[in-house]
């Protein structure tokens, strides 16, 4: 009897499965979406460097059969810059959780976008610090209960896509794990984009965010919570700010061209 193998299995580093994500976690879905995009585009994984910092999402690249940097919290875009400027021919893809990207890594994120560094960031936003056990994150909604906000969070949450738009990212989109086709399409666009691309995928974390903030460890219920709050961009444009207050707008927000970053100052022999 022949065993049928997942056609994307060839992109996984030998001996690394099963993965260590919790049952119901969206990171496995995002891994699939990325590989589907790579496969559809017929990209050569030898020419892609993947990067993960620290956190659940940061483990995604560890499973990939690519050159990979992993293991330091928040510094993904600093790594990405060193690689991209020295070897511009390589494609650099960063997998980052919300804590990794905009909490500890916020400053690097901001400046990489400002420079229009030619890399792709796939952000998995699960609204909390999951690997460390469910603490409040910059993306946690106001009044949410987490392991470090037992009386509710009194911090305002950050709209990362809005930040990216303001900071100068040249491709920005947001989906959730319930939108596989849109997510794959956006990742494909991001991978083909010349410049800083951000694809945010809101993802269910039943183990920590679900249990503490939503009082359920049920994957479907946590995902339903995200889906109920997700509003397509076209619909959102007709809604009041008040109605959008605790909603997540999904869609493509930015897709433009700008010169990419090659260094803080670049010598041009022709001009001398």
């Amino acid at each position, binding site marked *: 009897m022949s065993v049928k193998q997942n056609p994307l299995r060839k992109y996984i*580093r030998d*001996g*690394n499965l099963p993965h260590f994500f919790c049952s119901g976690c969206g990171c496995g879905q995002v891994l699939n979406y990325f590989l589907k995009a790579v496969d559809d585009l017929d990209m050569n*994984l*030898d*020419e892609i*460097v993947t990067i993960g910092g620290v956190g659940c999402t940061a483990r995604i690249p*560890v499973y990939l*059969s*690519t*050159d*990979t*940097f*992993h*293991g*330091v919290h*928040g*510094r993904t875009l*600093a*790594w*990405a*810059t*060193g*690689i991209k*400027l*020295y*070897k511009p*021919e*390589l494609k650099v893809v960063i997998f980052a959780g919300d804590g990794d990207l905009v909490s500890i890594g916020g*400053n*690097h994120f*901001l*400046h990489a976008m400002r420079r229009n560094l030619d890399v792709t960031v796939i952000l998995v936003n699960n609204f909390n610090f999951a690997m460390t056990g469910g603490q409040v994150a910059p993306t946690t909604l106001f009044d949410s209960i987490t392991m470090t906000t037992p009386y509710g969070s009194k911090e305002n949450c950050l709209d990362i896509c809005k930040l990216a738009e303001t900071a100068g990212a040249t491709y920005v989109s947001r989906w959730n794990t319930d939108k596989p086709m849109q997510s794959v399409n956006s990742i494909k666009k991001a991978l083909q984009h010349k410049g800083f691309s951000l694809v945010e995928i809101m993802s269910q974390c039943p183990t920590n965010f679900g249990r503490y903030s939503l009082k359920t460890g049920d994957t479907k219920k946590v995902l339903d919570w995200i889906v109920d709050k997700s509003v397509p961009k076209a619909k959102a444009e007709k809604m009041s700010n008040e109605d959008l207050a605790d909603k997540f707008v999904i869609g493509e927000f930015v897709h433009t061209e700008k010169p990419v970053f*090659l*260094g*803080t*100052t*670049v*010598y041009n022999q022709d001009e001398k």
Partner: protein
Amino acid sequence: MIDKENNWNQKRLKTGVHFMLGNYAAVEGALAAGCDYFAGYPITPANEISERMSQRLPEVGGVFVQGEDELFSIYSVASAALAGAKAMTATASAGFNYMQEGIGYASAVEAPCVILNVQRCRGENFATHADVMQMRWGASGDYETICLAPSSAQELFDYTLLGFNLAEKYRNPVIIMSETTIALMRERVLVPSYDEIEIVNRAYTDLQPDAYLPFKAEENAPPPMAPLGKGYHTLYTLNYHNEDGSIEWDPKGYDKLYKRITGKIWENRKDICRTEGYLLDDAETVIITYGSEVRPAMDAVRMAREDGQKIGLLKLVTVWPVPEEDIREVAKGVKKVYALEMNIGKYAREIERVCSRYCTVERITKNQGIIHTKDEIYQAIKG
């Protein structure tokens, strides 16, 4: 990677005699070594390094980035190094604090790179050796650093060049421990000719991707690297890792990995460590010192010699790893060793550890943000 024979750019090397700022000399030393990536963040008194790099590096085909902070500097340097660059960053004490995290990463994944730290005390640009222990012990976890202590603008050139070569040979971060005194001093610098410069390049694997294990190495040696983007699929993780790079969970794996990562420096210290002795042959007492303190110490030794005192000087070019064999050799033949430094007495502990079995050790320290004068040292050593 700089191939001296094929893509050496003549603009790299300003052969000849210059009257040059110490910080500039370090830049020229880096360029001579083949540096082609620099990231830095503004901080006094290291700014002239970034400024000159921003001009010099792009014109020889290198990359210059002014990062958003020192964390950016050290991580982009480590990743550029793993992508093939000869990479460097420069900072001063307060900025060096931030870099410790990245030095830990660079040590764990064995990224060859050079970090120049101009020591300056807290907040102000004082002369100091206050960070000498931080060079070695700043980051968490197990590692060894190679740290070189120049005492002049010329040595800023020489040791930065040497630092790159040692970084390449051992796949390890190398720290150039500069000081305000020499960084902001202008003096004679001789830049040698092309033929006089020795360049060491890291070893790359000759294995095909299927057969290559990125962290498989000889005992106490660095593993050969694989080029990035060529199908080797190397995983460079801070987590402790197997020979194939995968994240290890077996505690014995931790022990094995760090035994090699620290052993490749410590067990090769005879190759790494450099010292210079002056008037040691008949010496009954010896000053052991490093960095710019060597300068007044040398004067003081000459003054004491004129009085007939049999005193010599051991200059530590390599501060870390501790050149134990050379220090011990000196200690065995003398009655007393003076541990001279510009701080509350830090490296003196290392000198005491090595010497106290053989002779007495007396500390001469000054912690005022001012270098010792020759008279102060002379008074301290006068019999």
